[in-house]
Structures are given as structure tokens and as C-alpha cells.
């Protein structure tokens, strides 16, 4: 059958949707589903909030369209179906000396999802976003299929990259892979004592891949302490660890309570010797550290969790420090907190990245977290920063136009591609993105 009524949710499990979902196994069936009941494409639903949901409407699950279509070993241009997972591309191509030029924090993200959210990775400061390496997209809108690229229908291309699925169904994409030496990472880990030192270290880092883990429970002198990880790809032999583990049931509330997180973070900080260290690990362990624990989102218990991710321009660094401070004093943070330098590049009208520093922190979804996040969002808005829509479940609509200055252009392009609003999602409705003027 074409349709199945499903209840599904974003990765954070705070937003849910119920509706008919089609899961085509051949490209030819996608058009059939669109003719029948047009709805947005979804992938592995790794966006945290409601970007991948269409409550009471239909959705087209693209995960079964996950094949490689063409590859040119001379240029490194790979064409894949939209449902192929980024981690799968890395697994197959790294031993041959190629990697996706940009990889998000989970290898389970599909190529379609990476484009629709114009995701970034640990090399954003140098490489830009995922969309910066996409050379062509095959896009299906109600009624027609077209190929678009940065030079062919550039307006539609820019509205599709980072376009939250609003311009149609991404069937396949061509992307430029990045040459690498092999499937091993050399990683240098270093303790960083506080926030200012962290910013300095991020600014000075010369590495291709750089990411900071921060202890979001540390206060006072230790505020913003953490570990800086710098990585380069290389050739070598590292034994692959055994099979992945999974979280079988919802964890109880105390699993991520304040004392547990504080103790965990201290241990995690001390794991790296004071002198720092350089280690080698398989690329998957560096790029997708949490993928080895299946369903780790259940660790936050039944009520789910939210990720607050913002980017703040360098001119408002003081605001970012106050944000970290506020989080640390709230005692609500989980161990998952990441600080990164961002470069200026992005590929779409609605792309999240901008020059500055990005902070991402997970919170168990409870009343206190909602009010804290609302305050943080206010601070980000004042600091002329942005909230990442792929993670968002809470943003106030009023902030969207200032955070995303290309919104009017995007609205016009989306309206042209999808006049009926068939590809609206719970996120675009909640934030009134398509009706913004």
C-alpha cells in the first residue's frame, strides 16, 4: 500500500505528528504519492523539533531511496538518492580516499535532510555548509521534476538548500566529495580552562576539523571550561570497535539530574590529561560519536529533550558568555554541550550558519527548561544571533524575520515552487514562515 498512518516525532521527542506517510521504494513511486496526497519529504527524522513533522497532513519518507547513482573518481562528484545516509557515504568512500565535504554530528542524517537544513560540521570555519558542496539537485514539485544548480535556476536552488523542504521533494543530489588520506582521524584533545581561553583557542586553531566540548555545569572561574578537539584525516589502521549499543527504554528522571551531570562532566573533563594528548580513532567515532549508542534520545526520559543551538556574531561575544553563564547557573544542562567557531559561508537563503560562534546545549524537556530557553532566545535575538531551526521546538515567531533576513526572498521562491503550501511542515506553520512578508 502507498500510505500508512503513523505517529512519529522529531529526534528530541517533544514534538509529535500523526498522519499518512508514504515510503516509496522506487523513484517512480514518489510522483504517485505526490499526485495522491502531496506532502513534505522526510528522512530519518534527526532534526530535533518539528522540522520533519506534518501533523494531520501527509509526508513522504525517503529513506528507502538510498542508492548511489553515479560517481566520477576523477573529480570526486557523487550523485546519490536523497535517502542515502551521510554516514554510509563516509563508510563506503573513506577507504577510497573521499569523504562528504561536510558531515553533521550524526551519520544517520540523509542527504535530503542535510540539504534541506543546510547542515554544518566540525569544519564549517573552512569548508562552509553541506550545501556549499552540492552541485546539482533533482527536485520534484507537484507536477514536474527539474534539475537545479547554483547556476541553473539559482533562485530556486538557494531556496531549496536550507529550505526546510518547502520547495518540493529532493529526489537526488550531486555533491563534490573531499579528498582524504584514509578513514582514520588523528585527534588532538586539550583541556581548556575557561570561556575566554576557549574562544582564543578556537580562534587560533589551524585544524581542518575543530570542535569544543564544554562543561555547561561549571561556574565561577571554571565557567566555560572544556575540551578542544582538533582533527585531521589520515591513513592508518585502527581496530573498529564492536557492535553498537542501544538504549532499550526511557531512562528515569534522575539519570540526568544535576549531581549526576556534574559528576559526569568532571570525569569527562579529567579524562584528557592536563598535558593534552593526540590519539587516532576511526572517522565514525570522531564525526558521529553518539551514533554508536542507538536511540540515545531515550536517555532523557519520556518527556524528551530540546537542543538549544544558537550562533552569535563575534561582535557580541560578551552576550555569548552571558548565555553560557545563565545555562551554568540554571543547573539544567545535560553533558551534551558544544562550542564551535563558525565561518561566514552558507548556501541557502534560510541557512543557519553565519560568522561567529555557535553553542549547542541539550536540556531535558521540563517547565524550567522551556522558560530558560525562552530567555536564552531573547538574549540571542538581542545579540543579533540566530537560532538553528533544525533543532528548534520553541522559538517565538517574532524573532524569525530578524534572525533570517532573507526570509522575504525565501517566501517568494517557496510560493512560486509550491503555491498551494503542500510542503508546509509543523515548523513552518508554528513559525509562520511561509506567511511572513
Amino acid at each position, binding site marked *: *500500500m*502507498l*500510505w*500508512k*498512518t503513523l505517529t512519529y516525532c522529531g529526534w528530541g521527542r517533544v514534538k509529535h505528528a500523526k498522519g499518512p506517510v508514504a*515510503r*516509496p*521504494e*522506487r*523513484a*517512480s*513511486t514518489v510522483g504517485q504519492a505526490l499526485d495522491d496526497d502531496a506532502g513534505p519529504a522526510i528522512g530519518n527524522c534527526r532534526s530535533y523539533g518539528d522540522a520533519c513533522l506534518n501533523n494531520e497532513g501527509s509526508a513522504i519518507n525517503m529513506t*528507502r531511496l538510498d*542508492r*548511489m*547513482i*553515479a*560517481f566520477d573518481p576523477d573529480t570526486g562528484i557523487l550523485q546519490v*538518492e536523497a535517502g542515502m545516509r551521510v554516514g554510509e557515504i563516509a563508510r*563506503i568512500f573513506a577507504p577510497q580516499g573521499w569523504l562528504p565535504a561536510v558531515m553533521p554530528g550524526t551519520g544517520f542524517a540523509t542527504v535530503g535532510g542535510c540539504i534541506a537544513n543546510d547542515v554544518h560540521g566540525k569544519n564549517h570555519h573552512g569548508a562552509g555548509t553541506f550545501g556549499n558542496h552540492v552541485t546539482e539537485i533533482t527536485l520534484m514539485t507537484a507536477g514536474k521534476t527539474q534539475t537545479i544548480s547554483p547556476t541553473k535556476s539559482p533562485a530556486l536552488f538557494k531556496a531549496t538548500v536550507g529550505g526546510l523542504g518547502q520547495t518540493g521533494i529532493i529526489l537526488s543530489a550531486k555533491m563534490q566529495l573531499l579528498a582524504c588520506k584514509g578513514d582514520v582521524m588523528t585527534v588532538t584533545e586539550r583541556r581548556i580552562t575557561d570561556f575566554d581561553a576557549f574562544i582564543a583557542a578556537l580562534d587560533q586553531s589551524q585544524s581542518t576539523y575543530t570542535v569544543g566540548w564544554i562543561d555547561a555545569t561549571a561556574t565561577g572561574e571554571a565557567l566555560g571550561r572544556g575540551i578542544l578537539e582538533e582533527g585531521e584525516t589520515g591513513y592508518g589502521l585502527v581496530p573498529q570497535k564492536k557492535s553498537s549499543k542501544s538504549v532499550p527504554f526511557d531512562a528515569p528522571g534522575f539519570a540526568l539530574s544535576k549531581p549526576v551531570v556534574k559528576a559526569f562532566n568532571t570525569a569527562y573533563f579529567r579524562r584528557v590529561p592536563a598535558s593534552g594528548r593526540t590519539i587516532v580513532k576511526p572517522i565514525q567515532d570522531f564525526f558521529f560519536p553518539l551514533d554508536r549508542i542507538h536511540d540515545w534520545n531515550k536517555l532523557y526520559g519520556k518527556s524528551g529533550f530540546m537542543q538549544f543551538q544558537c550562533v552569535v556574531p563575534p561582535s557580541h561575544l560578551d552576550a555569548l558568555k552571558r548565555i553560557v553563564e545563565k545555562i551554568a547557573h540554571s543547573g539544567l544542562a545535560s553533558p551534551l554541550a558544544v562550542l564551535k567557531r563558525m565561518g561566514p559561508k552558507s548556501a541557502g537563503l534560510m541557512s543557519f550558519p553565519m560568522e561567529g560562534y555557535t553553542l549547542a546545549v541539550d536540556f531535558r524537556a521540563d517547565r524550567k527548561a522551556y522558560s530558560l530557553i525562552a530567555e536564552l532566545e531573547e538574549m540571542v535575538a538581542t545579540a543579533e544571533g540566530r537560532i538553528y531551526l533544525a533543532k528548534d521546538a520553541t522559538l517565538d515567531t517574532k524573532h524569525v524575520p530578524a534572525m533570517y533576513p532573507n526570509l522575504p526572498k525565501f517566501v517568494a521562491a517557496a510560493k512560486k515552487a509550491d503555491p498551494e503550501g503542500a510542503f508546509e511542515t509543523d515548523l513552518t506553520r508554528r513559525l509562520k514562515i511561509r506567511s511572513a512578508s
Partner: protein
Amino acid sequence: MTETWIILGATSSMAKAFARAVSLQGANVLLAGRDLDDLHVSAFDCGQRGAALAEAIPFDARDANGFDAIIQRARQEEGMINVAVFVGSMPPQAEIDLDPSLIDGVIADSFTGPAKFLQAIAPEMEARGGGTVIGVGSVAGDRGRIGNYVYGSAKAGFHTYLSGLRNRLTRSGGHVVTVKPGFVDSAMTWGIEGMFLVAPPEKVAADLLNAVKKKKDVIYTPFFWRIIMGIITRIPERIFKKMSV
């Protein structure tokens, strides 16, 4: 020496997962089916995943005239020739009730088509002194039920055919695995009411490879279907005839 796998009905999700699994081992794969556009993409995909050779080739279970071309293509490769049969069709029983002529198609897709193919290729396998046939049947073939007894009886016929073919090919060093999948998470079961314990195609593919390696004769996948079907086949007919399971 590189083995060749002829995969009949290669567009199904179970076949796709299996083709990927044998590609990873470096085999030759001939992807046979009706939708060649789709199969060309699958062939490229298998090649990238490690298949020594991957080609799409036309196959229609209802048209035996096309079978020889596939056999000739496989003959060009050295090494053992293996066949994995994933074809079958299951129109809703209610449609068959309205139009009994649909039965011919179901029997051709699920039983006589693949049987004719296997019959034609068996001498080549015997001449090469080995090779494996995987025949995908169904738990529906273990007992006729009100919901799908035409499909079930076609599969039952196929099971019996496979059992005989096993008896034959064993003598020349070959082997036949009969596979009885329960519910597999595919386009065939998507959105159908009453599905439970649905297995991902990758899991089924792993079970198939394991069965080939261990020379199993008849497997249920996932394994617990052996227990479920053990119970269902033991229900006395005078009770079973009144049930709708």
C-alpha cells in the same frame, strides 16, 4: 573464484538488501527484473559497494522466453552460479474472488515462473559442480488461510518444488535454501493492518547469507516464525477452518 548471483525480482527491498550484502563480499551480481531503469541504479550502487560485476538484466516471471538470455549471461562468468529468487505477487484475496483469472498471474509469479527458470539453469549448475539456490517462499505457504490462500498455495507449490530441486542438486554438490519469511518491512506490507513483528530487509538478508554459509535447508526469518507456524500448522483442521488468523 568469484561467484555469480542471479537475483530474480531484484527491485524488491529484500532483494536489494541481499544484493548489497553479496556485493560487499565481492560477488558478481546480475539484477533481474522488469523495471530496468531502477535496476541500472541498483547495479551501480552494488558496484560501488564492492560487487566485482553488477548488471541489470530483464526478467519477467510470466515470460519464459526471456530466461535464456540471463542464463547465457551468467555462463560467461567463471565460478559458481547461484540464484536467489525473490519474485512473487500477492493481489488482495478479495480482488481474486472477483476475478479468478488473476490466479494465473499469482501462480506464474510465485511458483511456475521461477520454477521454469531454475529448471533451465539447473544443468549448468550441475555441470559446474555446485552453486546455491535461495528460494524465497512464505509462511503463507505452510497452511491455507482465508486471507491469502491463492498466494499461499502458489508458495506451497514452490516450497515443494524447492525441496525436490534440493534433492536433485545435492547430488552434484549444489544446495537449495528454502526461505520462509514472516512479515518483512517492505512496500508489500507497508500500511497493511494487522502486521506485527515486522523484520527489516537487512535483517532478512543477513539471515539468508548465514543460511547459505551453513547450508541450511529450510529457514524461517526471523527465526521465531518457525515457532509461530509450528503452532498454526498443528491446529486441528476442524478448529482451524473456523478461524481467521
